[in-house]
């Protein structure tokens, strides 16, 4: 059936829900605004078919986290959510204490809805607040205002969500450092357990990118951008949050287990159009990694499922170089940093061309911390240059 012993550790499951009331200019995730009954029904039917099909292939795996993302999952009515939950619950062994997250937008939820999904089994909510300034929300094409955002957080608590996260963005066009930081201060004041702090980037292929290229969007300078990040980050850690990953902050025990599984090189299955999966095993320090992902096309996805075939667009089995690169990339974005499994690995790593001088240099400049024999990790300022640091170190990596 397959040669991966990925089932040793419980896996994560991601479900992509590709529907939105409207598209935001910055977003490059796959979603549609055609919310007709026909489309929704086709989607749910196909999703159930895919869940069954994959279970036939890989068996009834043990699951430690589920994440309903999008798109806007809170567009789905309770019946749909229940159907998805039922399918997953029938085909996979979901742990008693599994983390079950759903993304939600403030404009598409109310107290009743929240109570119901809580009852179904969703135990973590991630609300797309983004900003608490109305002009900024308009600029981002969001459908909610700050009042709705505040209400959504309050109602989520009322509905019984003891594990609550919000997304906040910084680095918006024309944004001042003070505005960005005060946004984070207000967001924290809402009393959440987890906060994802994302820098806004005009990704290729988005309307915002086009505007940016026409010179219409005055993004903050690199220095300001860094200031926003460093000051916000300092504020949150001062309030008792831990920055466990470059853009994720949590109170103790509230780290997102689903995302940690991605970064810690655990296996996961993704369902729905554009969803990504990874099957990863590790034996005696030797990783084997297979990644595959579905077409970013709902109609095609539906056709495939009607024929009872997978909707996989492409598969890659990683060689050791790519694996080393991914681990470095993921781990250096985490607070713990890149950890060496053994002295042996440490000495091998440090003996690559230029590696030692590169790392010494970064340590001299207080960008990186080297714990000899144990780990390398980015400092606070190092996170600001994370891309550059990771690219530099990876260029010395000779696998």
């Amino acid at each position, binding site marked *: 059936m397959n040669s991966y012993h990925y089932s040793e550790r419980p896996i994560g499951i*991601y479900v992509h829900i590709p529907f939105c009331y409207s598209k935001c200019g910055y977003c490059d995730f796959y979603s549609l605004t055609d919310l007709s009954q026909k489309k929704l029904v086709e989607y749910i039917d196909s999703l159930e078919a895919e869940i069954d099909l994959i279970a036939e292939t890989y068996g009834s795996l043990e699951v430690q986290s589920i994440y309903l*993302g999008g798109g806007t999952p809170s567009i789905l009515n309770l019946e749909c959510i229940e159907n998805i939950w039922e399918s997953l619950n029938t085909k996979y062994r979901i742990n008693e204490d599994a983390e079950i997250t759903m993304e939600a937008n403030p404009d598409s939820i109310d107290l009743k809805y929240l109570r119901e999904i809580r009852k179904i089994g969703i135990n973590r909510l991630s609300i797309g607040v983004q900003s608490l300034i109305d002009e900024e929300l308009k600029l981002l094409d969001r459908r909610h205002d700050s009042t709705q955002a505040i209400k959504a957080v309050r109602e989520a608590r009322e509905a019984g969500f003891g594990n609550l996260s919000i997304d906040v963005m910084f*680095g918006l066009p024309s944004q001042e450092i003070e505005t960005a930081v005060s946004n984070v201060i207000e967001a924290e004041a809402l009393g959440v357990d987890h906060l*994802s*702090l*994302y*820098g806004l*980037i005009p990704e290729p292929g988005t309307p915002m990118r086009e505007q940016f290229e026409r010179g219409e969007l005055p993004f903050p*300078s*690199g*220095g300001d*951008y*860094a200031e926003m*990040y460093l000051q916000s980050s300092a504020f949150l850690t001062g309030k008792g949050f831990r920055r466990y990953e*470059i*853009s994720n902050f949590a109170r103790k025990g509230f780290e997102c287990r689903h995302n940690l599984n*991605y970064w810690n090189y655990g296996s*996961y299955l*993704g369902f729905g159009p554009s*969803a*990504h*999966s*990874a099957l990863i095993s590790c034996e005696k320090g030797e990783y084997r990694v297979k*990644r595959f*992902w579905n077409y970013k096309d709902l109609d095609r996805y539906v056709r495939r499922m009607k024929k009872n075939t997978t909707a996989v667009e492409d598969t*890659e089995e990683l060689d050791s170089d*790519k694996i080393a*690169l*991914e681990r470095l*990339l*993921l781990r250096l974005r985490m607070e713990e940093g890149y950890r060496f499994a053994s002295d042996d690995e440490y000495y091998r790593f440090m003996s690559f*061309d*230029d590696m030692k*001088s*590169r790392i010494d*240099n970064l340590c001299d*400049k207080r*960008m990186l911390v080297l714990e000899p024999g144990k780990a390398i990790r980015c400092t606070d300022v190092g*996170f*600001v*240059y*994370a*891309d*550059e*640091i*990771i*690219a*530099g170190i*990876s*260029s010395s990596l000779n696998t």
Partner: protein
Amino acid sequence: MNTELIRNFSIIAHIDHGKSTLADRMLELTQSITGKMKYSKQMLDDMDLEQERGITIKAHAVRMDYIAKDGNKYILNLIDTPGHVDFSYEVSRSLAACEGALIVVDATQGIEAQTISNLYLALEHDLNIIPVINKIDLPSANVEDVSDSLCELLGIEKSEIIPISAKMGINVDKVLERIITEIPPPKGDKTAPFRGMIFDSVFDTYRGAVPYVRVVDGEISKGDWIEFFANDKTYEVDEIGYLRLKKVPCEKLSAGEVGYIIANIRRVADTKVGDTITLASNPADKPLPGFKDIKPMVFSGIYPTDAEEYEQLRDALDKLKLNDASLIYTPETSAALGFGFRCGFLGLLHMEIIQERLSREFEMSIINTVPNVEYRVTTDGAEPEMISNPVKMPPAGRGVVIEEPFVRANIISPPDFIGNIMKISMDRRGVYRTTEYLSTERALLQFDFPLSEIIFDFYDKLKTMTRGYGSLDYDYIGYRQSDLVRLDLLINGDPVDALCNIVHRDKAHDYGKRVNSKLRELIPRQMFEVVIQSAIGNKIVSREVVKPLRKNVTAKCYGGDITRKRKLLERQREGKRRMKTVGKIDIPQEAFLAVLKIDET
């Protein structure tokens, strides 16, 4: 073989003046090419590179049978000559193998400096010259003016010039007849001990080095044992023959003939152009005159881009050396570039050819340092030392005398541009000698230059300053003392050996400034400030700064799509890997060569 029925000749022409086309027509008229063989446009140039660059890099020879109007069947040996100043010694040997030469001038372009230099060489060897004006079919042909120049230059009557169009086949038959009537048959003593002059040598993977020879005296047969004057080895002749478009074996070659010798000779370096071959059983007492052990004029460090490919690079150079005796190389190390080789070349074109062959034939990715000439350095009256790597140059000081190679250059141009030529020549430390008028439209200027000043981009500059009309040729004339200094390049205070150069003291500041600003453009911003300085000893002569990188937080959620983020990183990493880390700074590899291309203005 009756030597009365042999004619040995060369064609002297500037690049693109139609030498190869004329050769092809002659091959057709003498039925040396059959229909099937007309696949390649120009028959004599058989290396890819040669065809692309439109120049014949290595001389070849071809034998044609021609029935003349007098009813006799003649053997015509066309000995081709390389068309670039880097190979002027080879040209002189090819000409020495002939009794006559066609001088071919493009009717639309006029006489170029290269043609005149080669013409002088031909006259030195007492060759009979047949003047030919080509491309008379083109609307822009100016046969009258070009004829005037040729008459002036050669002291001949207009009626002696053959106007032709090689492309259209006009008057090519006349050229063949004139070869018979005007070029004398070869002289030579068939009974004397065998002497053959090597005018070229090619390498055959299966049969080793194959010298092409002009037999001057005596004769040679298969099975003879041969010796060379320039080395003391002895070889048994496996095969001899003459050259059509392919090798044709024959029983013997005798005085006056042109052919090849196969004798299991391992390296082309053992069959030096200009050397004399004789028989071991009955050796001649003296070699033929004119042999020179040619020395490289231009030096450059060649390093593998990937340090692990050092061994492969050495193998590749070893293989190139097998069929290119003029390439020399010795191992060297650079703090910036690692292990590599200091290579010597005949000139810049030769260097570029080697670089291209390394990349095309051996798929090597290399970095080469700025080329330089070889300096003669005398410290405190001690024995002079030859220095070909700038890093080895002692710091300027009392008691250090530095000499550099000089050349005598002939520049031909319409008189309108004399002012411009004077200016660029003075900028290049040229010492003006004379001006002569070849015709009212063409002036010949002579200068002495330090070789280092004209070797790189002087010709391009000259072309620009004369709207394409100017042409250049030069001859090596010896070493002269100059006020030269070693200019070090420092990055954040650390000298980068691979970017060190020797320059004239008066130019050090300007040169340093240009190199620094070029590097400033090429070195990407890094996490820290990068200071680029040029220095003579402890004295900083110029300085540039690369500002630090803007901060680049990219805190973005990428969900389960790790692939995309990894691919982005792979691209970034590739970019980084194309750089060399010098003193903790990433320097793109282009930077090492870009220093060559710095603009003067």
